[in-house]
């Protein structure tokens, strides 16, 4: 009986760790043009289950503090996968500083401070060079609070 109780406690402990204090959900969507009831053309976001080269997809990360304490120094990192090219200026995140990496996530800097070495010569980094995006929250994320980060990319 004692052993069983210990096992249950261990399992509960694991469950707590797995859940963590923040929850983060990612979605990928694309813009769709449709005609509304008034006959006007409008845009809406729909789930991107499939995309063709040249199409723009939008990633949205929603992160929620599911604990009863503030989370400090919250940093969201998202890779720009092979086959995708970041859309310049599309990264968005209220209350965050947005930085980029051109070295597979080893270091991050503001877009204007990034350089790439090509054929032995240094040049300013372009959107196509970015491998990761990072959002650094300026303030703590209070208990129960939710925040959002978003960017767009073109499928090559």
């Amino acid at each position, binding site marked *: 009986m004692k052993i069983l109780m210990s096992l249950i406690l261990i399992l509960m402990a694991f469950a707590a760790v797995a859940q963590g204090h923040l929850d983060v959900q990612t979605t990928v969507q694309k813009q769709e043009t449709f005609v509304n009831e008034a006959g006007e053309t409008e845009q809406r976001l729909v789930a991107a289950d499939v995309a063709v080269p040249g199409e723009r997809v939008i990633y949205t990360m929603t992160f929620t503090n599911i604990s009863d304490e503030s989370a400090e120094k919250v940093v969201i990192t998202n890779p720009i996968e092979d*086959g995708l090219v970041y859309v310049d200026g599309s990264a968005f995140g209220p209350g965050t500083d947005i930085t980029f990496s051109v070295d597979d996530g080893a270091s991050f800097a503001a877009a204007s401070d990034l350089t790439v070495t090509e054929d032995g010569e240094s040049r300013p980094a372009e959107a196509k060079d970015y491998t990761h995006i990072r959002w650094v929250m300026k303030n703590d994320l209070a208990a129960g609070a939710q925040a959002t980060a978003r960017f767009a990319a073109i499928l090559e």
Partner: protein
Amino acid sequence: MISLLRAMLSATRVLLVRAVMCAVLTLALMQHTFAVGTVVGTIIENTATVDFVFVNSAERVVSNTITFLVAERVDVVVTPQSGQVVVLPNGTARSLLFTVTNTGNGTESFLLAINSIVAGDDFDPIPALPDSIFFDTGAPTVVVRLGDPTLVDGLQTVVFQVTID
């Protein structure tokens, strides 16, 4: 049209022969290879990471992994290569050269057809029978009819369209 044209021709004339080749697309099996765009069938995954400090201790959580599938973009470019073609009165078997390039992200069969009647001129050449489309095999003098081409994405073939006046 042709008789009218012949009546008009009293001397050798150079005509810019304009013709349009219509590439009608048929679906072919998916095939992975090097690509113009991301190859059809590729799955693009993405997972976000969140690092934070919780009650003085560093923690990291990862998001769900979201995926989407790269679908096929069917795209083809037909480019005239001949420029001006000289046609003499009663001339026959003049050829026009085109390249057909698969600019999509999957392997496709391209069904080629000829439309030699182009508005804006009186020159309406008749496609040769039984076949008027030939494919360049790469040999210097031999042109062999191969049937409609199946092109891996990014590759192209050279097509001769032969017409008789």
